[in-house]
């Protein structure tokens, strides 16, 4: 079982975390949906420091509407962005 499944609405945690992070700043606090469950991988944020990265973390492809990310986005409202985000960076939308 994974915490989220395809289609779930999610929000990227707006947390600051020092060191090696795989969630880009521009997505923090942004809302989107689970586009696919990509699998389980050793946590790269630990691997970067020579740790095992175990337990493996679930990786999701998360979809976003471009206008939900950028104010004044230049293109049509239907444009999208997909990013691969680990489970510990996601929360159900609406939760604080």
């Amino acid at each position, binding site marked *: 079982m994974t915490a989220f499944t395809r289609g779930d609405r999610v929000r990227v945690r707006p947390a600051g975390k020092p060191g090696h992070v*795989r*969630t*880009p700043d*521009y997505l923090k606090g942004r809302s989107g949906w689970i586009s696919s469950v*990509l*699998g389980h*991988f050793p946590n*790269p944020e630990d691997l970067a420091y020579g740790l095992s990265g175990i337990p493996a973390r679930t*990786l999701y*492809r998360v979809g976003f509407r*471009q206008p939900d*990310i*950028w104010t004044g*986005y*230049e*293109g*049509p409202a*239907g*444009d*999208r*962005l*997909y*990013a*691969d*985000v*680990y489970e510990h960076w996601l929360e159900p939308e609406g939760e604080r």
Partner: protein
Amino acid sequence: MSDGHPHEEVPQERSPYAARIRAMEDLLVGKGVLTEAEIQDRIEYMESRTPANGAKLVARAWTDPAFKERLLSNAKAAARELGLDPTHEAEFIAVENKPEVHNLIVCTLCSCYPRAVLGRPPDWYKSFEYRSRAVREPRAVMREFGFEPEENVEVAVFDSTADVRYMVLPMRPERTEGMDEEELAALVTRDALVGVSVPRFEDAAAN
């Protein structure tokens, strides 16, 4: 075209980055972490990977619908079918351009790219400018590469932030019905595999 002297690029060799790499290489070899032979093997490995591998995958997908399905569902297995070796890739996924969706690949955090299949990414792919602008104004970036998707086509940007490496499967251009796989592969540029451009029939003459 130059007159074939690869050494014309010597000034780059003197850049501070090159000097730093040489110094690190010396240290790693000196301390027994790596051998010169291992470094050479790795360079040869990288040099043997080129965008032509991606073009082969695309041309086969255009001519063989069953292969296309396999490429989209398991790109690593599909690559092996064509004799390519994606073993050292993390995950490898091909995303399909459709009449209603155009895909563009970027890595905003560093320079993730399907190197085991396509080799080293172009320098512009690693630049801060491309990495910051491709997510924020993808249409402006593509316009600068000479490509402009219609307003009613959705632009889907893939930011490869983690363990997946992405390649675009472009659409087969019109007027290429009579072309064989090799001729089709010659239309598929590295830029098209990243998605900043698309293959065009007109490029056949240029190749």
